[in-house]
């Protein structure tokens, strides 16, 4: 009996030592989870991937009536209508959720050039310029409106003298107002960009 008791005590001591040692190695954990040795659970992990938050909104979120509907309308009809808002304004899901979170506006020539600089690999039909030869001294936005890009509008009516008398940003007459990047411009500058019938 005595020798069996002793053997039993040694066995018990060994078991206790094993459990304690194991707990020390696993840093207090008694399950195998920490070693990722639990059985694979793809369904649970799949739901975790699904639950990640989005950072990019969608352009369609921008055009609702009490937000940016005016600029959205102009943009959808323009040649830039396929360029997502967030490509220039940065990720905006936070702004869509709460307008207090502001978005940025990248108006640097470098941003324009990522699409419009002349490259051999670009499809030839895509509008491209050689930045060093296309008015390198002026910012792109002095001529091009990002939400309504393309060449300056052609004058389609007979001259009536002072352009800005009708085409001011505030004039109530039914003439197209000048775009926002025309602030501070004078009559003698119109023909630098606009071609047409004006004498």
């Amino acid at each position, binding site marked *: 009996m005595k020798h069996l008791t002793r053997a039993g005590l040694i066995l018990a001591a060994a078991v206790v030592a094993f459990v304690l040692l194991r707990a020390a190695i696993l840093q207090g954990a008694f399950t195998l989870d920490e070693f990722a040795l639990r059985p694979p659970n793809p369904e649970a992990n799949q739901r975790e991937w699904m639950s990640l938050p989005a950072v990019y909104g969608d352009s369609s979120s921008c055009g609702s009536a009490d937000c940016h509907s005016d600029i959205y309308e102009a943009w959808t009809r323009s040649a830039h209508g396929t360029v997502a808002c*967030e490509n220039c304004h940065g990720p905006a899901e936070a702004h869509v959720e709460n307008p207090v979170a502001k978005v940025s506006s990248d108006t640097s020539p470098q941003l324009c050039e990522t699409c419009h600089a002349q490259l051999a690999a670009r499809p030839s039909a895509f509008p491209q310029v050689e930045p060093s030869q296309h008015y390198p001294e002026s910012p792109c936005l002095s001529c091009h409106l990002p939400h309504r890009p393309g060449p300056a509008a052609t004058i389609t009516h007979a001259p009536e003298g002072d352009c800005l008398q009708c085409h001011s940003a505030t004039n109530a007459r039914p003439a197209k107002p000048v775009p926002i990047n025309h602030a501070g411009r004078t009559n003698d500058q119109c023909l630098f960009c606009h071609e047409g019938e004006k004498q």
Partner: protein
Amino acid sequence: MAGDEGKGTGLDRRSFLKLAGGILGSAGVYAVLINVKGTAVLDIASGQAAGDYDPNEHYWGFVVNSHNCIGCGKCVVACKQENRVPQRDDCNRTWIERYHLTEDGRVLVDSPQSGINGFVGKPYLKPGEPEPIIDKAFFVPKLCNQCDNAPCIQVCPVSATYKTKDGIILVDQERCIGCRYCIMTCPYGARYLVPADADRSPTGNTSVADKCTWCYHRITKGRLPACVEACPVGARVFGDLNDPESPVRKIMRETRVAVLKPDLGTKPKCYYVGLEEGVR
């Protein structure tokens, strides 16, 4: 002799073995219970995130129209931000390659910063390499092909990589041990290791393998992957292969498409329009 010994202790060999077996058996049951409990807890915790999305109803596909790509890199920008991919040149879920095929048969490929800042000037040449006469040039966006027969799943020693019912290959980054086998085995270079000192990570885990999920958190909520949303020229198209009217199926009907490295038998679900032989 043996019988005497048994009588002397009051515990014969049979009883001793029974007792020992009982103790070991209980310990085994205890271990199983712990593991089952661990898994069950995990299930409940993550189950809250599941919406009414049914993976069995969809089978996603992707079309890349290489003819349209202008190499602006907006897809790479969008992907990095949407998925919190580390802001390093060697960590990418998607990237753009630029190909120049020369008159003397060379294939010049470059992808500066993976195309995140767009491309400038002429193709990269090794020092002393003769100035090429370009026959043709084009861009090829790359991303995970979500292969039907994915080699990355086969090699994973801890079953961290798996395929969902809707055809997306995902990585359980809690399970991944960062051994990099999948990164080595992917014939498309679609995987990377989130560095231990990464500034950010898709799931908050570092030293784990990561790859494009076709924005699984977006597509399961009826939205498009961020790169598709960002592409200004329709070079990236996403849709349901189960739906004959989806944009992807429409393109596959109307034009000829090809996959990358079809000879490997990986059965990619990323279909390329305008694929050139020099593209790997």
